[in-house]
């Protein structure tokens, strides 16, 4: 079903006429009402929209945590819209990296162990040492070398979110999904996190993130506006905005 696109970019996410209806007693809530969305490899998409517009619902389906009521969803050339629980778990493990607003790290578990966790559930052929090395490399990518042994309670919010990003990266997924990743962070730390996402995207990672804040969304390359379960507007950002530049703004220069 993937679009045969000669020499064009490869589609990672292809969503057609997606509908999600929640049944609340007598009332049917159409959380998604016919969404079409294609995300190509290497894109950095921000999904915006008012509260209750269906952003998280869309994200849960893209992340294979949930199934649509109708419509199709092809992820990385595989139709995942009718998959069973276990099949979706395997897809989540192999193809998707999640970053949540509330970090969702395991408490009383070191940063390294948190990052290792997805590999424990994977068809990971390597030894324990390989696994630890992969986790260490992922932590290194988000700038957390030296913090491997820290527990979440011993890390700042920004650092915790970096651990979560490292955990999302460790399986080399096809897409990284982030639902309001900066919602619990101050603006400076938010920019740091966006900087990491930009770095990842520069190195080829496909990223989809949800945010309320236009300032955050502007660091993506494309903004999709959702309203009442429909895509209302889809815009490309032409002018690159480097998150790190924001941090290095004149008000608070930071030695790096």
């Amino acid at each position: 079903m993937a679009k045969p696109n000669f020499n064009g970019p490869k589609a990672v996410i292809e969503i057609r006429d997606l509908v999600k209806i929640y049944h609340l007693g007598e009332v049917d809530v159409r959380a998604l009402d016919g969404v079409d969305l294609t995300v190509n490899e290497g894109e950095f998409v921000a999904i915006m929209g008012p509260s209750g517009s269906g952003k998280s619902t869309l994200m849960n389906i893209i992340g294979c945590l949930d199934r649509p009521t109708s419509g199709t969803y092809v992820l990385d050339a595989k139709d995942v819209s009718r998959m069973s629980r276990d099949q979706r778990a395997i897809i989540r493990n192999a193809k998707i990296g999640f970053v949540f607003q509330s970090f969702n790290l395991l408490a009383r578990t070191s940063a390294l162990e948190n990052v290792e966790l997805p590999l424990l559930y994977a068809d990971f052929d390597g030894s324990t040492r390989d696994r630890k090395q992969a986790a260490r490399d992922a932590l290194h990518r988000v700038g957390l070398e030296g913090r491997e042994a820290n527990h979440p309670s011993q890390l700042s919010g920004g650092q915790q979110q970096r651990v979560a990003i490292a955990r999302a990266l460790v399986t080399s997924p096809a897409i990284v999904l982030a639902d309001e990743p900066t919602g619990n962070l101050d603006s400076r730390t938010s920019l740091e996190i966006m900087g990491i996402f930009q770095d990842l995207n520069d190195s080829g990672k496909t990223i989809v993130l949800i945010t309320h804040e236009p300032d955050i969304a502007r660091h993506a390359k494309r903004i999709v506006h959702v309203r009442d379960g429909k895509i209302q507007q889809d815009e490309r950002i032409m002018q690159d905005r480097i998150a790190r530049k924001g941090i290095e703004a004149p008000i608070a220069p930071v030695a790096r």
Partner: protein
Amino acid sequence: MRNSIVRLGNITVVGLKSIARNKMRSLLTALGIVIGVACVIVSVAIGAGVAQSVSEMINSLGSNFIMVMPGTSTQSGARMFTGNSTLTEEDAEAIKREAPAVGYVSPNTRTAAQVIAGELNWSTSIQGVGVEWPNIRSWNIDEGSFFTEGDVRSGAKVAVLGKTVADNLFPSGGAVGSIVRIKNVPFKVVGVLEKKGGSMMGSDQDDLIIAPYTTVMKRLSGQSKIGMIIVSAASAEQVQDAMDQMDALLRQRHRIPPGGDADFMMRSQEEMAQANAQQVGLMRNLLLGIAIVSLAVGGIGIMNIMLVSVTERTREIGIRMAIGARGRHVLLQFLFEAVTLSVLGGLLGVLFGVGVAKLIERVIKWPIVISPQAIIVAFVVAATIGIFFGFYPARKASKLDPIDALRYE
């Protein structure tokens, strides 16, 4: 194949970490199993110890031993003793004379008294018996000699001391030839029995004095009838014959028609052993019942805590599912955790149970036998309980919806 083993190992590690993180709670959770398994260990140890010491005790009665007691046996097999003994020394003599399958015969009458030797005194049981007593009980004389037929006939004031009595009254030796006073009657010590050793529930077999039954009846107990008659069959094959012959003879002598209620009853060594085995079996079943109840309670405790744990860790389960844990991963994690808890509980229970059993042996002086089988069984039972009672909470965890679980506060 290799992958699935690795994965199983990984899940195992995941479960172990959760337990290590909640040490105190894990311990409290396992407490029910600890107590249940300790119960199993202690009860089996006591049961086995009692069984062993009872069989030792019965074997130490001598070989082919038969006891003839006054009283009737009811239909249920219980013994009823209705007042005075009906057995006489003439009965004993008649058995000796007329029952060919009987080897040795001795009247046996008993009383308890305080025995004084010089400054020392000792309370013990006095057994009045005939000269064939050592043959029946296969009990040898260590020092001196047993009393004679003449001593029995004349009611001589002679006594043979059990080893414990001799050691207590004559700590520096020289018992033979000395005088002991039993109820103020002076008895001359003619011999000391060899040590039998072995005690049954704290009672010491060597704590007794043997004297001619005539003397005991006349001087000490004042009874005219002998308490019971002890007999050994001529051979192991003739035990039943001996019992049949004695039954016929005593019925005839006591003028009891065949089929009528006899005023005496008999027990062979084998019957006593069986009765005891039955009693021990009963006790074991009772203890087993207690153990089953406590293990079930322990299992329910594990189920309860695992359910609490699943609820508390709903978010953790959601995170694990979001990053790729399948239902069976979560199921295995919680199942493994429950089994680890129960097996750790089993381990503590074995240690605790062995400790308690040893304490019982030291303090109450009950015999104890700790068998490796009991320990293995306790472990297997603990693991099974972990699987059985851990399954429901683990399944519940594995069926959680990842989105709901992630949203759980």
